[in-house]
């Protein structure tokens, strides 16, 4: 089962510079595990140590933000196209407050990471 994954510039150091890689898996979690096996370290840039989707990236399944498709539990099918983009955010607000704001925005079945 082949799923095409578009990788942003900032993560291409994990894919030998490749912009598009292929992976397999029937959920986003399974796909990320498969990608990490081929591109060691990629998982750590997509998933937090607490097991949630990293707030620094947006992941899309076809044309939808995966946060609205069940996040890491999103179901995938052969032929799906995954796009990873760096989340563009920032501002004068302190980091912990910004993180808490973002963490509360998206429905997730994983607890938000505790601010550090």
């Amino acid at each position: 089962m082949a799923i095409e994954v578009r990788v942003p510039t900032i993560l291409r150091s994990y894919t030998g510079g490749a912009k598009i890689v292929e992976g397999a898996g029937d959920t986003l979690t399974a796909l990320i595990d498969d990608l990490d096996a081929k591109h060691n370290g990629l998982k750590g840039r997509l998933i937090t140590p607490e097991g949630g989707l990293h707030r620094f990236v947006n992941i899309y399944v076809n044309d939808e933000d995966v946060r609205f498709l069940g996040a890491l539990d999103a179901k995938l099918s052969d032929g799906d196209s995954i796009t990873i983009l760096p989340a563009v955010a920032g501002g004068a607000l302190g980091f912990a407050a910004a993180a808490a704001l973002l963490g509360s925005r998206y429905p997730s079945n994983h607890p938000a990471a505790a601010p550090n």
Partner: protein
Amino acid sequence: MSVATPGSPNSHGNVNDVLTIDSAIVDAIVAHARRDHPDEACGVVAGPIGSDLPTRLIPMDNAARSMTFYEFDSMEQLRVWREMDDNDEEPVVIYHSHTATEAYPSRTDISFAGEPGAHYVLVSTRESDSEEIRSFRIVDGVVTEEEINIVDATVDA
């Protein structure tokens, strides 16, 4: 002036320590920041891949609608990033405003900076009669300020 110096193959894009940008684009960025004040404004200036020249201004919604935080709407971002891909463009400039503090990247800005090839342009609108506009590279958490070389008529405005 030509700024298209080839970078080393291992570098992220162009490594010139100057942002060359058309005055009409600078004016439009400042106008956007003024319009959205006191909320933070944000957007992108796309340019041909490898050119290091920002040519197409794309004001983005601040999905956070906040005076201290900005965030691209994820669906708008997908559409705009695909459009750039189709046009063989890349985000040459990513800009946002600080509305009560200086035009210098905050810790939040540095944490989120995910386009190592982009110039991060900050505008401060804290003074009502003047703007502070500065440009930075943010790569692996390291902030490097660069000069802004404002030129006329590199694009049709």
